[in-house]
């Protein structure tokens, strides 16, 4: 087993020198982690200045582990070493362009880590694990889950965890990532709840992407200039092409705009809806039917008349009640204004 281990390590090293990160990771992942045979620790480093960043994998032996983060081209290594002599660390770096393959492997590695993290008291490692997990969910396009995790990270109160300094920029980046992922998530009630949380967080008003967050929260139709501006902030995997020939961003925007249209219209013909969304009518129908089936939008489709009828979330009589509440509030506002002016 020791010999197999050495061969695997050397092969991994070779793959790494050729920048074949996935193969290097797979080589090391074949090592039996439970054997406890290792008596020396081996740490492999990899440095690159191409600006890609992220943590994607780690391995552990003996119940302890080393977690490595690569941020902005520089390498940071942290260890939770009780038995340093029995550690094996490997850094796996993935480029954003190889999302699909590497995201699968990365998720497998992070799932292994999750068992160990739950037993660890090391705050730095827990933080780094959270960052890693959020990024992997982002890569896997599980945007809503990623958004919640990014938001959780952005709310860290401590500014010093171990020898790790948490600066405001990092928290702001996490918050911005949360907003981005929420906007890219599938439109519907779940996303609306997260949007409400983010919109009501005063820190979001200082973000560059606040204007689009506001529009998305207010369920307003997004137009090309603001979509293009938002697109510039996205990572390549967030603009990746999907099997239906729309990009991730396209799909998110189309679904959002469809939901916005459902707030503006009682009913609309599919050809008009297609014009509004910038897609062919039959695609508009398909997306609408999927959203209705998935309970993310309420409505019905009349295929004969080629019309979609939108339904409100609340019954007519409840809406009546809400309208009356609105009238009463408006009346109170007027009376308050009059009182303030001494009338």
């Amino acid at each position: 087993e020791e010999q197999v281990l050495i061969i695997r390590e050397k092969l991994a090293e070779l793959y790494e020198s050729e920048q074949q990160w996935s193969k290097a990771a797979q080589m090391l992942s074949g090592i039996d982690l439970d054997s406890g045979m290792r008596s020396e620790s081996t740490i492999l480093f990899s440095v690159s200045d191409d600006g890609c960043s992220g943590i994607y994998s780690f391995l552990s032996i003996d119940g302890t582990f080393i977690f490595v983060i690569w941020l902005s081209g520089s390498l940071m290594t942290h260890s939770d070493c009780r038995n340093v002599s029995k550690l094996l660390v490997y850094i796996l770096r993935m480029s954003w362009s190889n999302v699909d393959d590497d995201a699968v492997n990365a998720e497998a590695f992070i799932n292994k880590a999750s068992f160990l993290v739950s037993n660890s008291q090391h705050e730095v490692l827990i933080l780094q694990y959270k960052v890693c997990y959020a990024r992997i969910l982002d890569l896997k396009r599980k945007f809503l889950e990623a958004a919640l995790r990014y938001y959780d990270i952005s709310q860290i109160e401590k500014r010093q965890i171990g020898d790790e300094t948490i600066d405001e920029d990092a928290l702001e980046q996490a918050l911005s990532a949360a907003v981005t992922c929420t906007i890219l998530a599938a439109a519907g009630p779940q996303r609306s709840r997260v949007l409400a949380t983010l919109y009501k967080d005063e820190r979001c008003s200082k973000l560059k992407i606040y204007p689009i967050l506001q529009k998305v929260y207010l369920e307003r139709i997004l137009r090309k200039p603001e979509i293009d501006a938002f697109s510039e902030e996205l990572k390549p995997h967030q603009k990746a092409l999907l099997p239906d020939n729309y990009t991730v961003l396209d799909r998110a925007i189309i679904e959002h705009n469809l939901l916005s249209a459902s707030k503006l219209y009682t009913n609309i013909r599919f050809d008009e809806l297609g014009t509004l969304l910038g897609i062919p009518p039959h695609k508009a129908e398909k997306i609408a039917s999927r959203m209705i089936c998935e309970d993310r939008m309420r409505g019905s489709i009349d295929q004969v008349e080629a019309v979609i009828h939108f339904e409100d979330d609340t019954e007519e009589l409840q809406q009546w009640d809400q309208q009356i509440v609105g009238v009463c509030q408006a009346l109170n506002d007027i009376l308050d204004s009059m009182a303030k002016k001494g009338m």
Partner: protein
Amino acid sequence: MEIEEKQAEVIDHFVKQASAQKGSALGSVFVEATSHPSLFAFSEILAVPTVAELEGTDNSVHLEVLRLFAYGTWSDYKRKSGKLPQLVPDQVLKLKQLTVLTLAETKKVLSYDQLMLELDVTNVRELEDFLINDCMYAVRNMYLQLSELSFGGLVRGKLDQLRRYFEVQFAAGRDLRPGQLGSMIQTLSNCFWLCSLELASSTRLATSDNLLVTIQDKIKWADTMSELDKKHRKELEDRVMEVKKAVS
């Protein structure tokens, strides 16, 4: 209300500007005010003494423009366009927005045909885009308070493409025309406005007699339909018996 809070500062700004200018210089102030994206009320500016002094002078045409924006509609402008200066595109947009508010004063349900006629719009897409972007989404550049509901527009409502109408749920108020105050007071008196919880039920009670008549009509209709249904059922049963006899 949101619109009023947002335009209060803008109104103050233009009132000060108007107070500091006289005569023809007010023309450019009025153009700026009537083009401003966040201003939909002009009676405060009209009340400025230097503005009122324009009446009967060579510069009274500027006063007419301001009054048009305070009380008038796009159709009013078209009727008087020969006597008024040409409006810039921002002014045209604003006047059309104000026209929608005026139409919403008298009816909750605005037909597409009426809107297209009043707004000089030739197709449904153009009309809906105007209503969505320039009326419902208007006031978009203004900061929205966290406590406010998801609304920032001049109007709020639902578009019904099949029935071709726009159902208005809310519309911002325009400046009151001279003489309009009386009818407003009359409406307030009729509607028992002081009791806010009974507000809506009060308006419904006013139509309760009609409601009873309507219910009676519905009962009659239901009885008639029931009779027809019984008759149809009997006819079917008789036919079935005939066919059975013929077969046997």
